[in-house]
């Protein structure tokens, strides 16, 4: 994979091995010698798009290795003017489904597909084109929707009460690139540092999901990184499912259109009362 020599690109963002079998870490390589440590394979789960925001202002081009799903995040970040396409050389890397110590990652079990949305060069093989999805992406959301309101409430209380507000979900999220998050901003009137009450647990996750609605590519990093194992993707996917159903199929990070379902409308959109009229109470 080290076909990029110095000159064309000033640095490479990829992965290197850790102390054990599965603890690969996103890594920065700034010279050809360093590239000896470069690896790509089964444990390259992290989405490197988020690191690109930091690299956007660096001198020279940065080579970044992106999996098919990561390219969606990259494209979305271009839509949001957080990245300048010209500053990057993108290697689309084939993906056979990524793993951690306990096997195939959750996000890969509901893989969205193997197409690269944006790239300069693709390195893959036949095997990496085979679908990895083994379950329906919206299965979890649908199951919850079919429960009663009380069941849903109990489910989410149990899940969200574990939140320790470590901000891993936010900090890993390629859609969360605010210079200053409202929850960190003392002037915003809603800043908070610890989930002191149920309400603070709820509001952080509702608002975070709302802020990334339409921009979330469903890369699944939030759930992957949560040290408390909260299924955060179920919140984002709820918005994705709703938007698909109400405003037409949409995948953030695909195509040239910069508008998201939340920054556009039609005159015949569903009324908010649709929430009262459908599904289980």
């Amino acid at each position: 994979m080290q076909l990029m020599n110095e000159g064309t690109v000033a640095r490479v963002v990829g992965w290197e091995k850790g102390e054990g079998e599965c603890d690969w870490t996103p890594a920065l390589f700034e010279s050809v010698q360093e590239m000896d440590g470069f690896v790509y394979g089964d444990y390259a789960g992290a989405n490197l798009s988020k690191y690109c925001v930091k690299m956007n202002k660096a001198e020279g081009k940065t080579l970044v290795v992106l999996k098919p799903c990561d390219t969606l995040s990259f494209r979305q970040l271009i839509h949001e003017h957080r990245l300048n396409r010209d500053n990057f050389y993108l290697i689309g890397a084939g993906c056979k489904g990524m793993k951690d110590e306990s096997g195939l990652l959750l996000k890969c079990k509901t893989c969205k597909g193997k197409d690269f949305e944006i790239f300069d060069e693709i390195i893959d093989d036949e095997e990496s084109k085979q679908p990895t999805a083994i379950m329906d992406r919206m299965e979890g959301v649908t199951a919850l929707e079919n429960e009663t309101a009380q069941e849903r409430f109990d489910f989410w209380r149990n899940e969200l009460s574990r939140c320790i507000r470590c901000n891993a979900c936010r900090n890993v999220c390629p859609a969360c690139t605010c210079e200053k998050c409202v929850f960190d901003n003392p002037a915003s009137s809603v800043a908070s540092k610890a989930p002191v009450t149920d309400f603070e647990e709820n509001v952080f996750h509702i608002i975070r999901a709302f802020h990334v609605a339409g921009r979330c590519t469903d890369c699944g990093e939030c759930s992957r990184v949560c040290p408390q194992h909260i299924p955060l993707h179920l919140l984002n996917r709820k918005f994705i499912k709703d938007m698909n159903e109400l405003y037409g199929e949409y995948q953030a990070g695909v195509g040239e259109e910069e508008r998201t379902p939340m920054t556009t409308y039609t005159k015949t959109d569903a009324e908010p009362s649709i929430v009262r009229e459908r599904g289980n109470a």
Partner: protein
Amino acid sequence: MQMVNETGWKPKIVAFCCNWCSYAGADLAGSGRLSYPADIKIIRVPCSCRVNPLFILRAFERGADGVILCGCHPGDCHYTSGNYYARRRMTMLFSMLDYLGIERGRTRVEWVSAAEGAKFSATMNDFAKTITELGENRKLGDLRCKK
């Protein structure tokens, strides 16, 4: 007139009204002496699209039992498109609250024009009734505020 249930508990309801249609509709309800419960307090906003989901969550945090957003009818927005955005945003927010198991009836959007004083009053009465039936908001408040 105030809504009171058996325990003496009274609902707290916040109504966000856009300046051009619904706030004027509320004024018309007033000049027509069309009553609705005193538990409902109105906050004036320039347009329904000014209402941030955070405002609604904040109301619940601080002890509101219901929040209603009123704006111009779709197509009649003073700013042409504000209520269309509000409609999508609120649909998404309400759907999420429902998904989290919060009672559906606690949030509502109604389009009330400046000429619809009667509708404003009827809507508010109906909403207050719904909230009274639902009872106190226990799922989405911050208990620290109760101290």
